[in-house]
């Protein structure tokens, strides 16, 4: 079923993070992060809470500022230059734990807002794209409702569609399923898997280890603000090298 041809990873570098450090005041949140993500790669980041995984992916579209090292996204280095930030943000889509849909706009307006105002797309074209992606996440019939009228799972799928409408080349997922009821997790994961099959570059912070095993090329384990171990999913789950990884895996898998 998995579209193997499209899921190929290329050699082209999408994201290059070198010796990146970040502090909150005196607190050292991210310590010497080095990471390369190739185009088409699907990476799952996991780790205990407070390990800095969310902060890491929020640095990639500069929702958080890093203080040392470099982050290069699609050939653009993230500095305080607004033009670069705009460029990166329009290339990188992000899905949040709490959906963050705009409650005062309809689903369709949520999806067309950024294409119209940022991409300068004509409204009709933006609406067509929006409907295309709504169908892709399987809720076109909800287009004229408001976010408050949808279930959590539906809202998260809308949020994914909203990001896709900007035609991003990279997608970041910040614990997309942890605010959802169990029966809704599957519908969101299915959407993410179909996205992976289309060859999207994805970095996903999640605790869904089934998803990691099925889709990821690489699993990155973080603790205390640093990357402790990364490996292909099979190796990572079967043969964790570091003690911290073993402990973490035993806690989330071994009931």
């Amino acid at each position, binding site marked *: 079923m998995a579209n193997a041809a499209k899921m190929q990873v290329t050699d082209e570098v999408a994201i290059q993070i070198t010796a990146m450090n970040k502090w909150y005041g005196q*607190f050292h949140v991210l310590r010497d992060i080095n990471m390369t993500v190739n185009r088409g790669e699907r990476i799952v980041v996991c780790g205990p809470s407070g390990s800095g995984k969310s902060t890491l992916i929020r640095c990639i579209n500069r929702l958080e500022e890093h203080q040392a090292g470099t982050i290069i996204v699609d050939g653009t280095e993230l500095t305080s230059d607004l033009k670069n930030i705009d460029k990166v943000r329009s290339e990188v889509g992000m899905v949040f734990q709490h959906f963050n849909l705009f409650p005062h706009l309809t689903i369709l307006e949520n999806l067309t807002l950024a294409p119209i105002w940022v991409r300068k797309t004509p409204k009709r074209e933006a609406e067509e794209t929006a409907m295309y992606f709504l169908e892709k996440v399987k809720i076109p019939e909800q287009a004229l409702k408001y976010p408050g009228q949808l279930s959590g799972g539906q809202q998260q799928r809308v949020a994914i569609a909203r990001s896709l409408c900007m035609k991003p080349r990279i997608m970041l997922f910040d614990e997309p399923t942890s605010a959802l009821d169990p029966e809704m997790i599957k519908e969101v994961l299915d959407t993410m898997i179909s996205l992976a099959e289309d060859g999207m570059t994805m970095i996903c912070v999640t605790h869904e280890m089934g998803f990691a095993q099925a889709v990821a090329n690489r699993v990155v384990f973080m603790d205390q603000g640093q990357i402790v171990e990364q490996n292909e999913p099979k190796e990572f789950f079967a043969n964790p090298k570091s003690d911290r990884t073993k402990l973490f895996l035993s806690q989330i898998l071994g009931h």
Partner: protein
Amino acid sequence: MSNSHFVRTQILPAQKPPVGQTGVIKWMRENLFSSWFNTILTFIGLWAVYALISSSAPWFLNGVWTASSVDECRAIIAASAGEGASGACWAMINERWHQFMFGFFDREEYWRPLLAFALLFVALSPVLYFNLRRPTMIMTGGAGAVLVVLLWAVGTDGWHLSLAAAVMAALAVLAWVAPKQLLWATLAFPATAFFLLWGGSVWAPIGVMAGFGIAVLVWRGLQGLIGVTPAAAVAAFAACVWWGFLQTYVTTVLAQALPYFSLPAEDSDRFGGFLLSFVIGVSAISASLPIGILLALGRRSDMFLIKTLSVGFIEFVRGVPLITMLFTASLLLQYFLPPQTNFDLILRVIILVSLFASAYIAEVIRGGLAALPRGQQEAADSLGLDYWQAQRLIIMPQALKVAIPGIVSSFIGLFKDTTLVALVGLADPLQGITKVVKADIAWKAAYWEPFIFVGAIFFIFCFSMSRYSMYLEQKLKTDHR
């Protein structure tokens, strides 16, 4: 892929942020000079602070604390700070602070309002802290300690000072031994405070409280026989009979038989200053709480008539200015009471202000009720509790807890609004007392000092209360998580 396998063997230690990322420089760059617009704002802000301080500081610093008139103040300032310098004449406050605080109350009797004020905190403590031993004890003890200092400061004689200290010590011990029993002090507070403030025979307030006692006894006795609501009606009737026909007779007899317990009577027109503000504010808020609860329940009731009456009352009161209520008290109330009924203006004002406050309290409590999950009412119903039991045991304790910050805010508003009673001729601290003080030729020329003194006291009370209510709100948020 080059980096697909990676294991860190050595955990990196936390490091200090690079220079320029911390410390004063970074703080200033982020908080004062982050953009050109921000930099301009910073300079405007600094200029405003400088202008404020440079224009007012000399006036405050040149202030004179001891003098017998404004002219003498001016002479002293001219001598010390040079001709033409301006300065505050705090001597006026020094001489007349007691009028701002107590109005025209007898100076020897200042211990009475002060003790009543301290007892207010004792009465509040079981309500605010839900009978917890430690905070109740601290509040009672603290109020006692402050009371002793205040009594000493106003020059109370040793006998009354020790009496007050003994009462507070006894209550503090009670709070420690049996914090739940302190609720009796809360229930007895209205009569106690009335007795302390107005004086006269102790039997009159006891008689009024006895009416409530009779009502409770009758209700307890009858509710098993004829049901809760009819029993309440009979109890209310019994209390009315007591107050209307028996009380005066019984208390007069008692006062003649046991004439020992009485305090020198203080007329209402001696009340003034912050004493008046507190008397009106505290009694109006306490009276408005039960009325407000009933109105809030009425507004949520399914019964059309009761809902209409409640909504009508609440919206009417909230729609008219407080001043019209005060003038109703001073001009209109006499038209609607039986002819020849004539009672004190302060009491009339308190009644009308209570009605005014109850509409606002009702809305606050309605907010508290709305914050409760629907399941609470359903759970109470499913346990077989009747309406009043459910309200008393399940709904109200929770709704009131949520509503406390709102009630405190209402009290702050009401406390500030007590200055309006000057407009119907009462001696509030702001206008009434200031007029009295400035009628003295010596202080006639002091324009700003009364404003600043009265304003500062209002600020201290209102600011601390609003901070307290913010603290409660914060605590509620965390409690409910």
